[in-house]
């Protein structure tokens, strides 16, 4: 081959490559998002589940019972939780996506609904809507008002402690912020660390403190507006929240930023730490012999004029709009919404899960009952930072809160950076 021919071939090759480049770009846009009408395709319903092996017992029973009813077959794919969270956008935008998914309510679902990726489940709600509290109904809606989410259960957050430790320290669960701080001082004075958190590998735990302080000081409405970007972090309201956080910082384990969750839980179980703001999911990680000693109290009120709001993260199911078995999907989700199914699901969660369907039969232990009462008496229920704001917003929150814990004097810069990072993510995603 002559040099000239070689050069021509190279040029041609580059042109082809460029075309491939442009052609490649096309694959980023989703394919037509229309719900399928007409009869279902054959084959089992694919359910992508993020339940871990320890939790999936209830789901397996649910699926078995549904399959036995003869209306159709459901096949469960259990995917590791972190993998599931990462891959869910890919699953939903794939050419042949799985039909049904376990997921949670809030912005996390609305993000997908806004892109027309979710199946309209209003028919399921029409049949069962009365069984669910009305707050859950609005939670399950997308921005156009149709339901896209079937809730299965929710759990609570509280300040956990060991009853025998409190007795030893001479503390009773506080109801107000001042009592809370006084108790912390008393505990610290006796050589026990009042608070800890496993922030070195689970920085998002700090958001629990932020959420509750914001809910107690500014109320749920402001909190939700803040998380959806309608209010700024660099605002007088958030400054009040951070001031309150600063009050409680001296009572944290000084090494909290370097403590793993595993370490934090064992410190708590051993009595080196007195209190831990946790979700109910943490109850199983307490050693069996200390389970009966475990208790929790509601996060104390700061401003009595602010209506009490609680965090009640809700889990449930969503379905892909591209499913080729919409009828079977709706039948399955119909079953999922029924009291029997909801009872089954809750039963496998070791008492940390409250079924969403109010008609589900409950076998509540003392802590679950306390959690249920707490959530039902709350005026408003929010979901938790990442579920309300969207997963993408969690990282700037982690950065801001951990920076604040390390250097509270940098508050101005921290809040400015938080606003900038949050806005940037909203713009690019």
């Amino acid at each position: 081959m002559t040099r000239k021919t070689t050069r021509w071939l190279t040029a041609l090759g580059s042109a082809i490559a460029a075309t491939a480049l442009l052609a490649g770009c096309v694959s980023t846009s989703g394919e037509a998002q229309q719900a399928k009408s007409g009869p279902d395709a054959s084959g089992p319903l694919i359910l992508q589940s993020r339940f871990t092996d320890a939790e999936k017992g209830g789901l397996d029973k649910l699926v078995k019972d549904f399959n036995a009813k003869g209306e159709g077959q459901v096949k469960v794919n259990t995917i590791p939780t972190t993998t599931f969270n990462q891959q869910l956008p890919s699953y939903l935008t794939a050419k042949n996506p799985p039909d049904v998914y376990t997921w949670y309510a809030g912005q996390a679902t609305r993000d997908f609904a806004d892109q027309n990726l979710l199946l309209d489940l209003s028919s399921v709600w029409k049949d069962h809507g009365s069984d669910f509290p009305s707050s859950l109904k609005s939670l399950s809606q997308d921005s156009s008002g149709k339901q896209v989410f079937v809730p299965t259960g929710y759990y609570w957050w509280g300040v956990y402690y060991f009853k025998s430790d409190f007795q030893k320290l001479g503390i009773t669960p506080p109801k107000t912020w001042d009592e809370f701080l006084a108790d912390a001082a008393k505990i610290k004075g006796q050589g026990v660390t009042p608070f800890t958190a496993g922030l070195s590998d689970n920085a998002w735990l700090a958001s629990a403190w932020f959420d509750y302080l914001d809910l107690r000081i500014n109320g749920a409405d402001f909190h939700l507006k803040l998380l959806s970007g309608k209010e700024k972090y660099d605002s007088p309201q958030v400054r009040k929240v951070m001031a309150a956080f600063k009050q409680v910082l001296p009572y944290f384990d000084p090494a909290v930023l370097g403590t793993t969750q595993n370490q934090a839980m064992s410190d708590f179980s051993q009595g080196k730490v007195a209190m831990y703001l946790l979700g109910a999911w943490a109850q199983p990680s307490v050693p069996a012999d200390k389970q009966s000693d475990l208790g929790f109290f509601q996060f104390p009120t700061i401003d009595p004029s602010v209506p009490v709001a609680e965090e009640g993260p809700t889990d449930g199911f969503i379905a892909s709009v591209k499913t080729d078995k919409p009828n079977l999907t709706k039948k399955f989700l119909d079953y999922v919404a029924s009291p029997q199914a909801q009872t089954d699901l809750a039963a496998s969660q070791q008492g940390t899960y409250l079924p969403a369907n109010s008609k589900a039969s409950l076998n509540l232990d003392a802590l679950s009952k306390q959690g249920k009462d707490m959530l039902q008496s709350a005026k408003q229920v929010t979901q938790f930072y990442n579920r309300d704001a969207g997963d993408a917003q969690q990282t700037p929150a982690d950065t801001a809160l951990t920076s604040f814990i390390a250097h509270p004097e940098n508050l101005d810069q921290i809040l400015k950076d938080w606003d900038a990072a949050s806005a940037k993510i909203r713009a690019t995603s």
Partner: protein
Amino acid sequence: MFALVLVPFLVEAVGVFWPAFQGISLSFLHWNGIGPATPVGVKNYVDLFSDPIFLTALKNTAIWIVLFGGISFAAGLGVALLFQSERRGVGIYRTALFLPIVFSLVVTALIWGAFFQPNGVLNNVLDAVGLHSWTHVWLGDSSTALYAVIVAALWREIGYVMVLFIAGLKALDPAVQEAARVDGATAWQRFWHVTMPQLRSVNLVVLSVLIIDSLRSFDIVWAMTRGGPYHSTELLSTYMFSTAFGSHALGYASAIAVVIFVLAIAVIVSYLVRALSEEKEA
């Protein structure tokens, strides 16, 4: 005959190059993975260089390359020199050093995390020998977290480097070493003036591999600290991952990936051009 080269090349072209073009083209878009993509030209790149987190990650990656790369190189060479001859017990020592590579990261990260806990093994040992002032909150202190993670990463890498060097040392001509010894050269002189020059090509391979591994280091950092506390252990690779799958900004993540790629190419190309032109002379 051309098929010998063409078939593997085509396989790589389809499996790697074509997706790579798409990946690169992603960097000129804003895309969250589920909605339509918006073309934004070079905005992602412009944003990158004014992004304080990116600049921190760049700085941390540079520190990582120097420390992780440098110590792996020196320590790997050291243990290779130590364990190069086939004497009794050496197989066990080599295996002990290579075993970290075979064990999954999730659990080893947990163990290293426990090692660095405020009341973990390291601090307890320091206290016991009276060095209490040296104890730190290793993973929580932004000035020590990166170095703590580097220690864990080194634990995995040194064995691999050792194997590469043992391979190189085994190919050396022992007669040259012996001649130098007879001439009265000390061990250090023998090492520096006889062994090292002969190892030149091995050194280049190891350095390139270390640069590549440094730029790709992701798992151990992510498992131990997720890039925290507040980005003090953020590397280019972890930042790329968190923007892609945490912040759902795939276009931005692709831009970071392109930067990593360009950095890797810049380093490797100089080595390759030199190595390959040497061969032309050979």
